[in-house]
């Protein structure tokens, strides 16, 4: 039997991991739901966010400033990619956008290597305070990550449910032609959604930077997990993404407590099981792509 201390820290580790997955996967999910593209370059904005965070926190010594900077840099990079590349290929097949976005990802990794080099960079943890929960020492920083993810979820939900742009986006996920028929410029919506997605990926990179080493391939390391989160939750569903990201986070964390190699294999097994029952994930729409 695993003792409670290990279990509590494991659960917390899973929660913070799930939060990072959520911040990243929501971008992929939003892009798919609204624009029907699979944007692998979210992983690039994740690494860009982490690197900008590293640079700013080295210069100013403040990680929070860095994370905000990383978010902004991710959003700007996403905006540029959207205006330059995606605007031309929205009409094309979905897998086509997937390859193009992989090109952007690989090219962007090249740019990062050019500026920052190959050496992994450490980022200092801003708060090393630990609090005591049920006799277990818990690092506050991980709790803050979870809080940020929850705030982002609430923010996204309010944005989608309360504001007019958000409502237009939700309508766009249902049916883009109708939204266009109402006189709304959908391409403007696409740009906004892409920038939000890229910004959230940048934020995820910035927040996760202190817990890992920042290196050019870091995007490819989380790739599999983010994919599994998106597949389990169902492409295009934000609620599904939230649930599945915490599920995968817990499975990775608790699985590694039981038997280390399980951490990587268990989410995959779960994904296969869920796909066996529901081929479109937990909350994915059964509709074929339009």
């Amino acid at each position: 039997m695993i003792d409670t201390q290990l279990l509590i820290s494991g659960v917390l580790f899973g929660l913070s991991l799930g939060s990072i997955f959520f911040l990243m996967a929501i971008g992929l999910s939003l892009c798919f739901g609204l624009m029907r593209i699979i944007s692998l370059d979210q992983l690039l904005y994740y690494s860009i966010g982490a690197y900008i965070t590293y640079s700013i926190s080295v210069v100013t010594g403040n990680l929070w400033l860095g994370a905000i900077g990383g978010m902004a840099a991710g959003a700007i990079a996403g905006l540029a990619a959207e205006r330059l590349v995606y605007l031309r290929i929205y009409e094309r097949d979905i897998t086509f956008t997937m390859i193009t976005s992989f090109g952007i990802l690989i090219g962007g990794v090249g740019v990062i290597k050019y500026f920052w080099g190959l050496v992994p960079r450490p980022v200092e943890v801003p708060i090393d305070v630990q609090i005591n929960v049920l006799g277990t020492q818990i690092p506050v920083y991980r709790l803050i990550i979870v809080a940020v993810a929850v705030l982002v979820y609430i923010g996204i939900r309010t944005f989608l449910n309360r504001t007019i742009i958000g409502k237009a986006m939700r309508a766009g996920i249902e049916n883009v032609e109708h939204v266009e028929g109402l006189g709304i410029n959908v391409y403007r919506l696409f740009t906004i959604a892409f920038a939000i997605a890229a910004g959230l990926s940048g934020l995820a990179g910035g927040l996760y930077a202190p817990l890992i080493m920042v290196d050019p391939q870091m995007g490819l390391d989380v790739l599999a997990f983010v994919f599994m989160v998106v597949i389990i939750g169902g492409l295009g569903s934000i609620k599904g993404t939230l649930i599945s990201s915490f599920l995968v986070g817990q499975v990775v964390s608790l699985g590694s407590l039981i038997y280390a190699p399980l951490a990587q294999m268990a989410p995959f097994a779960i994904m296969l099981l869920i796909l066996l029952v529901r081929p479109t994930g937990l909350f994915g729409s059964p509709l074929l792509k339009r």
Partner: protein
Amino acid sequence: MACKDWRQKVQKQSFRRVIEMRISTGNSAMNVLRWWWGLLLAFAMLALVRVFLPLPFANEIILFSIYAMGCNFLLGRVGFISFGQPAYLAVGAYGAGFYLFYFGTNAYVGILFGIVAGIIVSLAVGALFVRLRSDYFALVNLALAVIIYYLMQKVLANITHGDNGLWFLTTIASSPVLDLSRPDQFFIFAFLVAFAIWAFYKYIDDSIFGACCLATKINEDKLTFLGYSNYSIRLVAFVIANTTAALAGAMYAVYLGFVSPEITSAAHAPEPVVVTILGGAGTLYGPIVGSLAYIGMKDLISKVVGNWELIIGFGLVFIMLAGERGICGTLAPLLRKAFSRVAAPTAATGVGGKTR
């Protein structure tokens, strides 16, 4: 299944493509020649590659084009885009690798083991995957590639020696007919295999099964209506394509003399798809042209600049924006036009006196 019946039905249902295929495959010598000339042309080109370019490069190209052929079939004929081809490549490579490292020394048997492993794995995985929608299919396959990477790197580290990989270059015995442990003879073997696979895919294209594959891509409801199962057609196509990838993997393992998890890392995941698109998906020469262009480009760029990812990545985006028909698809009409322009004046001069 009532084959003849079905054929009539399909023709009635006016799958243009099917009819064209039926017409184009006759028995006369002319048609046989037409069937083969493209094949001979493509492989004459590869033979030229062997003469003019260094051997390792030629070997790499021919192996990669075998690898890309499976993906080309999957993408161009069945309409599945798979980012998980490295997974099947690795299955084949490790199938051959395990045999050569632990059990035997015969390279041919090793390749056979790789193929069998490929069939088993792609049957098991395909039964689940082919039910999925194309977007999920692409994502799930990529996840599979990463999982196999972890499996080989960490979980089975006792057997696979983790990142160090399995080395068996020196233990491969020289085989009787074509000595696979020598690169120049390996090239001939790879050449023959590529030729056979190419002919096989060409044969499939002209068969009823090939027409079915194309039909599942274009209109699956109609195929269901005709009494065929989309699922089993896709499954068989999936197994064929991924077994080709596994074969390429096994040949890589024999050629390089080692396997490491690096073969299935996510960074290489889209390479076969890129090569296929580069060459033109669905065109039969696509894989060869594509791998020639891609490997050549990568080789040249990585020699000149260290930072090849930058150029490959943005070059890929550029290619995607420039045209989705790929090199072969774009060049073919241009070449035809050029040829007709060359042919036209000669014709004009020949008949010129009378017409003018």
